[in-house]
């Protein structure tokens, strides 16, 4: 039994259950009920990690979620978890933990050299120092700095664990199962209200778990009372008690997120069928925040030495885990609570010196002295000394004002230094929900001062400093919340607390605000006085920030990073504000406080993602032909939620497969010379129906649709009200009051939204209705000179040019199923867009491929489609257009029908900016060297423009929007938007290339193939 700091009796631990674990590879043992932190302390381990910036040795400071230092890595491989707080990790057999941010080992860390550089690493150091040379220099510095600084490293493999998410609704949510929370839940639960009580711990009791057995409620030991209340609550069908559940965020309207560690405490792979963690989203009508109070550290020289701990935490380790962390303990306090610690430690066998920063003492001093504690009133620890663990403290008497040290120096050998800087209400959740806080000088802390509707604080979170006050506050809050939900709560008989060492009126005694304990050196000169342990921020850093003008609280926070670590400033926040107020010579209220933000404790990404990982991350939409594409080995691209084939690489005679370029080239040539088949099912399809459908479309598109005859199609262009291109597609009129509208694949949802918005908000008088039919139709586009003869035997529709001309729609049977065929073309070739009910899509696909196989019909993908349309100069919305492009820019001014009355965007087309002569216009671009393919997005400059150099501006004429090597023309082609481009056709331009010579090109018309459009009409 190596647990040298474990007392032979006491504690809420299971001495029969010995648990083996490792820390940095060393085999240790703990007991059932331990946390990793208590087990380490039981084994005499105080040192647990290295600090973020200076790599200083750091030890366990706290008892729970507030812990800033004891961040460890748990487990190994992909399931490893970095930055776990040892104080919140329940010990299990086989647990493997490692310290972080040290190399090669915890005790000999080379990174600690950073500590030697500390004098030149003040706040803002990085901003000031790593400035150049060149704009890219920061990236190099950042890489090096990030390797040095930082906390744990995230595992790189996929997380093997399972995470769940749940929604819950309740009348009352109670945060925290301490005395106030239990009382609130009991009062509301008995009224019949639906209550959820959530607490981070595995058992109810809150801070009672950290106290001795001298506390009582209604005559029974306080923890017995807590267990009895928990049992009663568990028996109520209207109450749900969540253990190991941290409330992470509190948002508008009492919407909360809670993070439940369902099976973490069992160890990896032992969770049975249960998930590792669960994220709850809770909507509560009322909330009572009974989140307790947090003890603050004191700011003094060497206060980060391992072995310097919070007084209350030390008491908690003693009472809950029977761990006496030190034998020779010095305590420094500015309030009464450390007396309770000193008395308990002394009784457990330690010898204690208590330095009370207050010069007027406290009635508790007599009890402490009677127990054997040496009490020094008006004294301060001016410095804690030691390397890997505190081994000596320097004590001096303070002047009455607290401003100076008087009297001789006394040095004491210690193995633990406990500190108590007062207790502050834990208002993080309250403040997240925009509750107002005010500074209470008696508490030396911010406390709630009026919250939003349905939100109350109780107990320590509300500033209560005695058990009686916590119980009373809890009952009152629970009853009020239940009443606000409409439940008649029978008043709970008052709960009577017995708490020794606490005056009848409650209170931790007078608290003396000592924001920086006076030391032997001026602030910032002597040994470091840490304010934020996790981010390595010192009092000197705050002073520097204030001196440099970052004296507003939010500026100071960001400049020094105080409170921005993973502990969210639980321990550092109030001290930083007090120090800032002192430096500015103003009140803490005038300084104010920074904003509390979710999450209260770090929440794993796994829990946030829940089941939405991998294929479940986003819904996948599949066309009826998708399975065929995948089996053919098509290369796929993501288009919204679709996966469209880019191309269909074929096997080559040598057993390899075509690459993407070769496949695309083959597919393009097949469409130009024989026929190709495209799965166009993803095309957005909307049925617009009703007596006013034509009027509606007239107002929506730039084109006329009232003049479109049934059975005919028209290419339509849709603008935003700003006059810029929103979407395009073919609109077919089926009969007088029915239109089959197509949109781009990516724009379908937005166009439907836009149509519905206009019909509901602008023109509610129009009788027209829109229905998305994208998924109802499978679309196979048969394109190429042989497409008519391939399709003819499969349909009863007369395909002859006279009977079924270009830009018309026909309905009939294809492959035996009812079909709607559009004779439109996006490739420039004779094309039939065959629409069949989705369930026949795959059959249609197979049927067409079989019918065309002996005529050279091949499937083609979006790569070939894009290339074919670019050869024809057809635009793609979002590629040739951006949010500023108007029809005239694309050469489509002729399509805009000014004579049909108003339409969306029309008025904007005559705004002065739209009539500018130097707007970018769509043109073609031909490189002087025909095999050179320009980069899409490349800038275009004048041929005599100087080469771009840093600091020199080169006027840009435009940019390349689409660029390909055209198999049809056997040369490169590009589309571009160029200022005044249509007037520049024939002119030479230059396209600068990063890291190479500029490419010479000339401006050309934007149609490279079949400019009369004969093929599509044939």
């Amino acid at each position, binding site marked *: 039994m190596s647990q040298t700091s474990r007392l032979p009796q006491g504690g809420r631990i299971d001495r029969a259950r010995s648990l083996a674990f490792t820390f940095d590879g060393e085999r240790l043992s703990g007991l059932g009920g331990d946390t990793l932190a208590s087990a380490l302390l039981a084994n005499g381990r105080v040192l647990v990690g290295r600090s973020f910036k200076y790599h200083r040795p750091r030890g366990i400071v706290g008892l729970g979620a507030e812990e800033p230092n004891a961040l460890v890595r748990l487990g190994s491989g992909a399931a490893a978890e970095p930055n776990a707080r040892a104080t919140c990790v329940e010990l299990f057999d086989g647990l493997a933990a490692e310290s972080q941010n040290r190399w090669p080992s915890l005790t000999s860390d080379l990174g600690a050299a950073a500590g030697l550089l500390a004098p030149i690493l003040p706040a803002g150091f990085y901003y000031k120092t790593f400035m150049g040379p060149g704009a890219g220099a920061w990236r190099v510095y950042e890489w090096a700095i990030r390797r040095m600084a930082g906390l744990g490293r995230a595992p790189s493999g996929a997380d093997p664990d399972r995470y769940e998410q749940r929604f819950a609704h309740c009348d009352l949510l109670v945060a925290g199962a301490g005395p106030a929370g239990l009382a609130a839940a009991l009062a509301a639960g008995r009224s019949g209200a639906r209550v959820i009580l959530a607490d981070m711990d595995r058992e109810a009791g809150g801070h009672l778990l950290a106290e001795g057995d001298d506390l009582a409620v209604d005559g029974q030991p306080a923890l017995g009372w807590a267990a009895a209340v928990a049992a009663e609550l568990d028996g109520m069908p209207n109450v749900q008690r969540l253990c190991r559940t941290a409330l992470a965020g509190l*948002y*508008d*309207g009492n*919407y909360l997120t809670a993070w439940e560690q369902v099976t973490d405490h069992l160890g990896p792979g032992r969770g049975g069928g249960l998930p590792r963690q669960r994220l709850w989203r809770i*909507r509560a009508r009322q909330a009572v925040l009974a989140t307790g109070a947090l003890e603050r550290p004191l700011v003094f020289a060497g206060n980060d030495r391992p072995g310097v701990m919070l007084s209350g935490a030390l008491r908690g380790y003693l009472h809950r885990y029977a761990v006496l962390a030190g034998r020779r303990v010095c305590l420094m306090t500015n309030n009464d609570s450390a007396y309770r610690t000193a008395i308990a430690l002394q009784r457990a066998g330690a010898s204690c010196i208590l330095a009370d920063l207050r010069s007027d003492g406290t009635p508790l001093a007599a009890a402490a002295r009677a127990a054997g504690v040496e009490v020094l009133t008006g004294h301060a620890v001016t410095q804690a000394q030691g390397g890997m663990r505190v081994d000596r403290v320097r004590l001096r008497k303070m002047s009455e004002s607290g401003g100076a040290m008087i009297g001789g120096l006394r040095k004491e050998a210690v193995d633990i230094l406990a500190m108590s800087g007062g207790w502050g209400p834990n208002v993080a959740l309250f403040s997240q929900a*925009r509750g107002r806080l005010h500074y209470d000088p008696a508490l030396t802390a911010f406390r709630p001062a009026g919250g*939003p509707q349905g939100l109350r604080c109780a107990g320590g979170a509300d500033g209560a400093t005695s058990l009686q006050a916590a119980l009373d506050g809890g009952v009152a809050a629970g009853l009020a919340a239940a009443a606000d939900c409409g439940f008649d709560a029978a008043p709970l008989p008052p709960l009577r607390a017995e708490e020794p060492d606490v005056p009848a009126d409650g209170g931790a005694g007078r608290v003396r605000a000592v924001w920086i304990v006076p030391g032997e050196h001026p602030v910032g000169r002597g040994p470091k006085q840490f304010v934020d342990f996790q981010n390595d921020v010192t009092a000197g850093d705050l002073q520097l920030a204030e001196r440099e003008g970052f004296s507003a609280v939010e500026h100071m926070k960001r400049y020094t990073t105080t409170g921005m670590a993973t502990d969210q400033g639980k321990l550092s926040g109030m001290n930083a504000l007090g120090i800032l107020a002192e430096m500015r010579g103003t009140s803490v209220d005038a300084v104010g406080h920074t904003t509390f933000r979710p999450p209260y404790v770090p929440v794993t990404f796994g829990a946030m993602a829940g089941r939405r990982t991998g294929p479940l991350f986003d819904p996948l939409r599949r066309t009826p032909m998708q399975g065929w594409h995948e089996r053919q080995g098509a290369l796929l691209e993501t288009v919204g939620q679709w996966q469209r084939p880019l191309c269909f690489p074929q096997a080559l005679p040598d057993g390899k497969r075509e690459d993407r370029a070769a496949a695309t080239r083959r597919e393009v040539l097949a469409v130009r010379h024989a026929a190709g088949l495209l799965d166009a099912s993803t095309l957005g399809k909307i049925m617009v129906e009703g007596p006013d459908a034509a009027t509606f479309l007239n107002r929506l598109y730039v084109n006329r649709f009232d003049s479109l005859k049934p059975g005919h199609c028209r290419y339509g262009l849709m603008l935003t*009200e*700003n006059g810029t291109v929103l979407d395009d597609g073919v609109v077919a009129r089926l009969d007088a009051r029915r239109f089959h509208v197509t949109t781009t694949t990516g724009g379908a949802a937005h166009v439907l*939204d836009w149509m*519905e*918005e206009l019909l*509901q*908000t*602008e023109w*509610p008088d129009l009788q027209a209705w829109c229905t998305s039919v994208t998924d109802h139709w499978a679309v196979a586009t048969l394109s190429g000179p042989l497409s008519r003869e391939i399709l003819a035997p499969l349909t009863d529709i007369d395909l002859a040019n006279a009977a079924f001309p270009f830009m018309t729609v026909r309905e009939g049977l294809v492959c035996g199923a009812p079909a709607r065929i559009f004779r439109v073309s996006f490739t420039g070739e004779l094309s039939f867009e065959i629409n069949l009910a989705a369930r026949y899509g795959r059959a249609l696909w197979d049927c067409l491929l079989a019918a065309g196989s002996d005529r050279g019909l091949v499937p083609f993908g979006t790569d070939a489609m894009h290339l074919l349309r670019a050869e024809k100069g057809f635009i793609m919305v979002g590629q040739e257009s951006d949010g500023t492009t108007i029809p005239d820019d694309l050469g489509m001014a002729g399509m805009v029908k000014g004579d049909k009355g*108003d339409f969306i965007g*029309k*008025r*904007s087309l005559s*705004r*002065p900016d739209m009539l500018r002569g130097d707007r970018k216009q769509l043109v073609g671009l031909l490189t002087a060297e025909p095999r050179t393919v320009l980069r899409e997005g490349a800038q275009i400059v004048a041929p005599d423009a100087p080469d771009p150099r840093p600091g020199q501006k080169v006027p840009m004429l435009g940019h390349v929007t689409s660029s390909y090597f055209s198999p049809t023309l056997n040369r490169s082609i590009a589309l571009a938007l160029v200022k005044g481009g249509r007037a520049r056709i024939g002119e030479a331009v230059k396209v600068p290339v990063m890291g190479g010579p500029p490419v010479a090109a000339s401006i050309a018309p934007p149609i490279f193939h079949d400019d009369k459009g004969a093929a599509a009409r044939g």
Partner: protein
Amino acid sequence: MFLIDCPWCGTRPQSEFAAHGEAQVVRPADPAAASDAEWAAYLFLRDNPKGRLLERWVHRHGCRRWFTVARDTATDRIEAVYPPAGGPAGPPSGPAGGDR
């Protein structure tokens, strides 16, 4: 995330809805007759008050209907929900928004 009382579906979480800015911005009846300044005001100028604002919302992942919400932009408190004009009761000609 606050709750919104959809006039048709009842109380639903904000994530089911989409906000589309200030309500009661009236599209000029005859855009062609509007001056450039008037048209630009319709297109671009919106109130951005700290306090009560009438906003257009749509129950996008629900009934897909549009309606008007009076929201306090500082507190996110929703003061009232109005069905669109032509519904059971039209929105008020409130102080926020206003004709343009």
